[in-house]
């Protein structure tokens, strides 16, 4: 008898977060606006080496020549880049004395998510021992990891402690000039995570980092760099379960993953930033560039994402399958409710022989939201005997929402096989009634049906993440039917 969905749910209740946060307590903030001086200031405040400043400036100069992309199936007010402060060290938003002062709606959400009281306090800046922090993420497991030679630290620490490693790989998978938002990120990124797994090492635990958005009006430009050396393995979790109640906020992260010969990286995300209110006001703009380079023979990367938050999402975790027999996987559940808009999918670039990729995308749209899958499968001439399978399903709740599929397929040799399947279905009144007739409430029925629909993707997530994701799906869709 396996561990079931409900077991997972049980376990999540009362579950405490296992990873804490530590921050260096620096409280200044650069004035709004962006120019070369600001970039120099960021770099000097962070005591960065010259090469990194050069990297930033080059990216910035390139960014100035670029235009904001408008091909995605989303509509939003373009961010005013001069109205953003590009550096802000952490400070608790308001000095709250107890949880009684926190927005009751938010508390209700925490409760549903099973977030512990301690963590709730933490998130609202109540506890003084640990502070939510956009500058650095450290983990209590650092020592254990170091014994295995695994490096897992904030990006800024890594720049200081392992400058050569960082310099070697920064921008090697996502070049500074890759796209508009990647260029912006390269110019102004504040912090993020760095991870290096040495040759032949299997990382014994899931590496986890929680991104949070703190200050209203502060753009978030996280930078993550993961290097898996030959024959290594790591499972990496990026998550944020609690929604932040902020102004429209731009979030333009870059995640680069370098996967060497016979190495494997599993990267899982649960994304739940503030989606805006029911009228579509507020919410996070999530414009992320995520790419993995499967560089060598049998390199493998697997992206799994559960996207429930953000007002606008623009995100295509991709795999460059350069090595022969390399493999890329993309499993995605993207939920949009109310006025949310998501344009998400994956790119699989087959360069190596016998390379293999899988795309499983499950879109769920409710309210008046727009949910698009956009995917590119490109098989180059030399990538003989390559294979791709893509499946893109859309589930509609109600009849005012939109689901769209934009698959792009380019195959340049005859021995490769690319398969694409797509379905669109509506959540059935009959299914809900069937559940209700068995004593299951309407809300629980929707959650069951939606989780069933997304099962293939949820199964890819590590256990504790899967439970969180299930709850998120249910909460996001609350009140969407009937």
């Amino acid at each position, binding site marked *: *008898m*396996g561990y*079931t*969905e*409900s*077991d997972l749910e049980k376990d999540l209740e009362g579950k405490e977060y296992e990873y804490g946060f530590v921050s260096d307590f620096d409280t200044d903030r650069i004035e709004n606006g962006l120019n070369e001086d600001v970039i120099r200031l960021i770099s000097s405040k962070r005591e960065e080496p010259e090469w990194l400043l050069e990297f930033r400036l080059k990216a910035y100069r390139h960014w100035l020549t670029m235009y904001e992309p408008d091909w995605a199936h989303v509509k939003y007010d373009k961010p005013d880049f001069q109205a953003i402060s590009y550096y802000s060290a952490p400070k608790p938003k308001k000095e709250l004395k107890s949880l009684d002062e926190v927005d009751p709606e938010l508390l209700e959400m925490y409760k549903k998510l099973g977030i512990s009281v301690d963590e709730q306090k933490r998130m609202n800046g109540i506890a003084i021992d640990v502070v939510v922090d956009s500058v650095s993420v450290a983990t209590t497991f650092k020592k254990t990891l170091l014994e295995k030679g695994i490096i897992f630290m904030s990006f800024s620490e890594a720049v200081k402690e392992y400058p050569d490693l960082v310099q070697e790989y920064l921008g090697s998978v996502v070049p500074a000039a890759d796209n508009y938002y990647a260029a912006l990120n390269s110019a102004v990124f504040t912090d993020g995570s760095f991870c290096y797994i040495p040759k032949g090492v299997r990382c014994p635990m899931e590496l986890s980092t929680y991104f949070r958005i703190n200050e209203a009006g502060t753009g978030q430009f996280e930078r993550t760099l993961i290097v898996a050396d030959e024959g290594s393995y790591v499972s990496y979790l990026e998550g944020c379960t609690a929604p932040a109640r902020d102004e429209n906020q731009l979030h333009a992260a870059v995640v680069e993953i370098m996967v060497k010969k016979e190495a494997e990286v599993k990267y899982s995300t649960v994304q739940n930033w503030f989606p805006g209110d029911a009228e579509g006001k507020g919410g996070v703009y999530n414009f992320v560039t995520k790419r993995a380079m499967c560089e060598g023979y049998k390199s493998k990367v697997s992206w799994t994402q559960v996207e429930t938050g953000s007002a606008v999402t623009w995100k295509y975790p991709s795999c460059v399958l350069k090595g022969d027999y390399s493999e890329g996987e993309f499993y995605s559940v993207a939920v949009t409710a109310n006025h949310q808009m998501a344009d998400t999918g994956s790119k699989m670039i087959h360069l190596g022989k016998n390379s293999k990729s899988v795309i499983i995308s499950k879109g769920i749209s409710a309210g008046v939201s727009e949910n698009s899958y956009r995917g590119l499968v490109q098989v180059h001439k030399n990538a003989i005997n390559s294979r791709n399978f893509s499946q893109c399903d859309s589930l509609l709740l109600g009849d005012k929402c939109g689901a769209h599929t934009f698959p792009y397929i380019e195959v340049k040799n005859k021995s490769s096989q690319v398969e694409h399947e797509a379905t669109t279905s509506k959540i*059935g*009144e*009959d*299914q809900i*009634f*069937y*559940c*209700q*007739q*068995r*004593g*299951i*409430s*309407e809300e*629980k029925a929707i959650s*069951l*049906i939606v*989780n*069933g*629909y*997304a*099962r*293939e993707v949820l199964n890819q997530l590590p256990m504790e993440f899967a439970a969180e994701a299930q709850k998120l799906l249910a909460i996001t869709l609350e009140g969407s039917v009937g």
Partner: protein
Amino acid sequence: MSTPIISIKNLHAEVEGHKILKGFNLDINPGEIHAIMGPNGTGKSTLASVIAGKDEYEVTEGEVIFNGKNILELDPDERAAEGVFLAFQYPVEIPGVSNTNFMKAAVNNIREYHGEDPLKAKDFLKLMKEKQELVELKGRLANRSVNEGFSGGEKKRNEIFQMAMLDPKLAILDETDSGLDIDALKIVANGVNQLHTKENSFLVITHYQRLLDHIIPDFVHVMYDGKIVKTGDKNLALELEEKGYDWLK
């Protein structure tokens, strides 16, 4: 004379403006088995849906008292928790939701309704096993999604399995015998008979007398144009088999 488990009085119901139930009356006492027969489209499934609480059917007149409560005011899941079970004529598929999880949600929601703690995993699994044996679906259900890819006969047996799991006071079987081979028919009938107690009642909707050879009804009703036009004992079913419905119209 005991109080009826369900008492339906002058029930009128319509869907999208079509009047379908037109003054339906029926009392079922605890422990009784009633059969309803009648031509296609006379409203048998509609009656079942109205009792179970399907949204799209609007009750315009009449009452349904179940176990002393006016259940027309309850949500479908509350009616289920009160002890109404409907074995669907066309059971739906729920992809990705295992039978185990589905039944666990059902059983525990109903327990919660009655202020009881959820069943312990061990006890729940034991119950699952026991009831699967009852319909000879042992080992074929647990890890498969609800009804997904099931054959017609398996779906019907799954309905009886679910009924056994939930132990309802009143089970309405809507053409559960349709599409069953002879062996499956016996399995289903056997399941029903094992669950039949002095307290548990059944309302069996069928077109075929052969089911009633295995599940012996106390009463047979003929439904026509939204109401009962004739009531008899099990011999009425035989008579209908022979003469059809025309003589009753």
